[in-house]
């Protein structure tokens, strides 16, 4: 009896679950018995079914400019921005109301895994209010300090922003930065306070979970954000504010129409390249691509026009109709890479695959700069410029996850400058002031009037009990205090000028750990300053290891030299002779470690049962030997370099 009952029960449940799924999918299936509540009550609209329904192109002329709103949500990391976006999407029927809707706009695996938004995403919401149908274009933006660039890019297509602040954490450094971005762009700002899963908005409580009263957010968007100031009658003027790459369809450009109309079959011209394309498809993002007949001035959507090359859809470019040229829109301030690192394929045979992966990824993320580079140990590769460390890490992770590429990433450095004094060098570089992104090309002091290093203005907001420790940390990082003020009863905002190289590797982590995670940090570019920079060489038995050359501030040379020598000592296998690892400034040795010679290295027991294992190990070692880099007579395995060069994020 018991077994049977158990089985019956199991079957029943399985059936119910299946029925639920079938109903959701809209698949034909056995009709669930009316008593099977779970299945019968499934009222969630089927997503794929309805999106198939929506495949029928929408007539966008139904949305005049006055019924259109373009807005962004900006917030500090983790303040609930993406969750609010999910609720707005649910409310407007763009997505199902299911428990699975977590950060729908965070499409990238890395975004969902880390709970951060990296890439700005767009969704067009259709919302009925007071008898009118509104088109609300939501542009979700990244919250991390590294991605201010994406935020500013998105804002240029908007007239207003929702500034989300977590009620528990309050205003953070990033909140301040984002506010100023919106303020400078002269956008309407609607503050939204999020208390964990509860939103407080203009004194009315909103339960984000149930989605009730999130409506008031939408209503505020309609009431408080002005419609875009555009003209349908004018010739087409569309701003490319983002682009993605689809393996099958090529470049998908996200566009905001400032003037005119665009439809399938139109011939368009890129103001930047002057190339002409025929539009294959236009549509809105809902949040998935949904074709429409046309896109009208004031609307935000996508456009596919046979652009195949990754360089054809420049962010900030203006598109206009063939033979109807217009004044291009002011291009965006292009992103300025703050951190550089070498990137190499783990296996050189993977070079071409990695190259195409990087090209595709940089189309999605045009803020990454790419220069070809090569290293004796690591082969051919690139020196990439990133907005910051998180950006670099995310880029690497996306390469691995989306393109299955495995790469070696070297220690990040910052772009130094040198003012040349040697006439010969000036002639060679064709300019007096050069930027050095690869330490191996650092010019000698004798040929240089002065070196410059990039600096940033950092903003730290912290509960006052951590102020002392944070000031110490900043001083250790050669930072100069510019400002310090209470922003409420117990929180302090500190402003410091930092040399960028002092914060690229582990500053943020140190700050977080000494403030128990409470302090927040943001920075902005503050130009260059003169610095006493030195080139630090690492030598193995007297031979310079080119890939380990680093540029450091004079005051940090000893510590850096010692650290590299120690790390190298731990990762260099012992050899048949002693290895001296030295750090040197010019001819002056400032640190030394020694790897002793092997006195005994032979397997003790090697009998019948040990041979297979021994030969396998030898095979691995012999193969590994082929990948060794020889510096003088010292054999350095690639992973030793990786251990030394690898970022320690």
């Amino acid at each position, binding site marked *: 009896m018991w077994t049977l009952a158990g089985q019956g029960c199991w079957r029943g449940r399985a059936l119910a679950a299946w029925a639920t799924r079938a109903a959701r999918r809209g698949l034909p299936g056995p009709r669930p018995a009316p008593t099977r509540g779970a299945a019968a009550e499934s009222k969630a609209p089927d997503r794929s079914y309805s999106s198939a329904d929506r495949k029928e192109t929408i007539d966008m002329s139904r949305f005049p400019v006055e019924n259109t709103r373009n807005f962004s949500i900006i917030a500090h990391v983790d303040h609930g921005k993406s969750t609010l976006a999910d609720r707005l999407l649910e409310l407007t029927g763009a997505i199902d109301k299911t428990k699975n809707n977590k950060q729908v706009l965070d499409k990238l695996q890395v975004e969902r895994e880390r709970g951060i938004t990296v890439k700005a995403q767009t969704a067009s919401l259709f919302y009925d209010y007071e008898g009118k149908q509104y088109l609300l274009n939501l542009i979700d933006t990244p919250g991390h300090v590294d991605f201010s660039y994406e935020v500013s890019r998105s804002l240029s297509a908007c007239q207003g922003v929702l500034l989300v602040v977590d009620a528990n954490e309050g205003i953070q450094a990033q909140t301040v930065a984002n506010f100023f971005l919106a303020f400078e762009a002269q956008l309407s700002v609607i503050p939204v306070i999020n208390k964990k899963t509860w939103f407080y908005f203009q004194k009315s409580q909103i339960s984000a979970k149930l989605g009730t009263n999130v409506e008031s957010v939408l209503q505020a968007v309609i009431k408080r954000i002005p419609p875009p100031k555009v003209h349908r009658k004018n010739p087409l003027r569309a701003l490319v504010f983002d682009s993605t790459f689809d393996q099958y369809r090529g470049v998908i450009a996200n566009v905001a129409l400032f003037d005119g109309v665009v439809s399938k079959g139109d011939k368009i011209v890129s103001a930047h390249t002057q190339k002409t394309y025929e539009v294959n498809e236009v549509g809105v993002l809902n949040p998935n691509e949904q074709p429409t007949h046309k896109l009208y001035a004031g609307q935000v959507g996508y456009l596919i026009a046979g652009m195949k090359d990754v360089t054809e859809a420049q962010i900030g470019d203006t598109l206009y109709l063939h033979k109807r040229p217009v004044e291009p829109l002011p291009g965006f301030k292009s992103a300025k890479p703050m951190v550089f690192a070498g990137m190499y394929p783990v296996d050189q045979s993977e070079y071409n695959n990695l190259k195409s992966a990087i090209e595709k990824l940089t189309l999605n993320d045009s803020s990454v700069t790419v220069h070809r580079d090569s290293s004796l140990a690591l082969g051919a590769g690139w020196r990439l410029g990133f907005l910051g460390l998180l950006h670099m890490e995310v880029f690497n992770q996306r390469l691995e996850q989306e393109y299955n590429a495995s790469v070696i990433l070297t220690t990040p450095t910052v772009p130094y400058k040198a003012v040349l004094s040697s006439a010969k060098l000036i002639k060679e570089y064709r300019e007096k002031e050069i930027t050095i992104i690869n330490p191996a090309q650092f010019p000698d002091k004798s040929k240089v009037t002065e070196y410059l290093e990039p600096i940033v203005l950092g903003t730290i907001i912290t509960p006052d009990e951590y102020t002392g420790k944070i000031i110490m940390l900043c001083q250790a990082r050669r930072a100069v205090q510019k400002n310090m003020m209470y922003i409420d009863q117990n929180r302090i905002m500190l402003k410091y000028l930092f040399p960028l190289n002092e914060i690229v590797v582990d500053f943020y982590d140190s700050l977080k750990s000494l403030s128990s995670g409470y302090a927040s940090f943001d920075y902005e570019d503050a130009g260059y300053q003169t610095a006493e920079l030195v080139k630090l060489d690492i030598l193995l038995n007297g031979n310079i290891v080119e890939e380990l050359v680093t540029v450091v501030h004079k005051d940090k040379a000893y510590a850096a030299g010692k650290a590299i020598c120690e790390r190298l000592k731990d990762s260099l296998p012992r050899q*048949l002779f002693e290895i001296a690892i030295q750090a040197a400034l010019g001819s002056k040795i400032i640190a030394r470690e020694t790897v002793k010679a092997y006195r005994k290295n032979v397997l003790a027991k*090697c009998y*019948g049962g040990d041979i297979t294992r021994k030969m396998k190990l030898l095979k691995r*070692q012999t193969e590994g030997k082929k990948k060794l880099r020889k510096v003088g007579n010292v054999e350095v395995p690639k992973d030793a370099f990786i251990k030394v060069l690898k970022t320690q994020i």
Partner: protein
Amino acid sequence: MKLKLKKFSDLRKRKDGRAAAVSAPVPSRWRCGPEPSRRRSDAGRGHAAPFLPPGRPTRPGSAHTGRFALGSSPSRVLARAPGRPTTAGGTAFPGVRARGWVKAAKMAQKRRLAEDAGGPRGPTPGSQRAALYVHWPYCEKRCSYCNFNKYIPRGVDEAAMRRCLVTEAQTLLQLSGVRRVESVFFGGGTPSLASPHTVAAVLEAVAQATHLPADSEVTLEANPTSAPSSRLAAFRAAGVNRLSIGLQSLDDTELQLLGRTHSASDALQMLAEARRHFPGRVSVDLMLGLPAQHVGPWLGQLQKLLHHCDDHVSLYQLSLERGTALFTQVQQGSLPAPDPELAAEMYQEGRAVLREAGFRQYEVSNFARNGALSTHNWTYWQCGQYLGVGPGAHGRFIPQGAGGHTREARIQTLEPDNWMKEVMLFGHGTRKRIPLGELALLEEVLAMGLRTDVGITHQHWQRFEPQLTLWDVFVADKEVQELLEQGLLLLDHRGLRCSWEGLAVLDSMLPTLLSRLQEAWQQRTPSPVPGG
């Protein structure tokens, strides 16, 4: 079987044959020793005359003495007393044959082993000769350092185990087409826990299936506590003629740390007993590089051991193996990690002490005087064929009996119960067969051969690779040249071998040598068969 056991007293009374085989302490092989390898002009031929090293007594007819003519033929020849040639075509009577073998073995113990076990010792071609390893998988207790394939049984069905060992030995011998088994090694586990009856049964099966020369080396690994005098006598009666004692240490604290069940005095007592039963043919293992072990006291142990030991000593540096208790303790920090510098010093000092005492270091960890090398182990390092019988045993041979022409690395099923089931079903428990290509075999010749003092002689190399000489492969390479210049490696008219210093760091040299070999192999004149 009982009949045979009655012969104990008889066996004990046998004349000690040591005198016959004594050779002067070997001059250092590392630099200036005489050409140790075969000097015969017919070296390398399939039917080379027996290779007889200097100092070994030659007896008339010895080449055919006590041999069965054919391995798998139903009409095999009985073992006869040594000294009298046998004729083919005799009728086999199992019991008689077994007795015959033990008797012959008894006589053979008068003979000593070849001082240089380097070449083929009989007229049988390499592919028809093999060594035989027999694995006894059970132990009384788990030692803290051991990651071997062993089991602590609740109760062993020894009769079943015996049947299976015998069956598998028969199957594999037939499969290999081997006509002559030159050595048998009972390893484990703790094979001295097995009954002498089991050992005898396996040996008899081998003698029945193929030719097991009366002077074949038959070694048994023994633990000091598991083999009292009476058992030693029984093992000897069963055909064992060499004992390898897992003494490991002469310090009771260390023995405890290692999880051994015996004390230092147990070990010395056992050693004395063993030498009475197997004079000149007892080996002892001593470990070095234990956690918290120091050079001085360890050398003291070695000196003490030298007062008691026979003609063979093995020095093994402890290697911490994952999954052992010792590894865990070191990992957790409850024991200090062994210091590799100290271990290196112990090794160097230990080798020197043994050399002073007249021992020849014929392999990385093995030392012998009076020519008491282990021929069985020598077979491994010379890349001879060997058969592995028992759970988890490894073998390397050409399955000629099944029409094979390529040497295979073969591994038997690991777990004893599963292995037994397979043996009962299929006659053997071979789990894995990996064909060894020509290059793979040459790599083994190189990696194993360099572990020995004679290294790889030109003749030895030529047996495996008639075209490319050692000179061809190694002489022009820059990195090999560096090793030669550093005095770690020697390449001369004798062959390729490690120097005294080089032997201790062989594993650092092998990747260089192997990658050079691979290169030379790829560049050689392409053989008519692609990929051959």
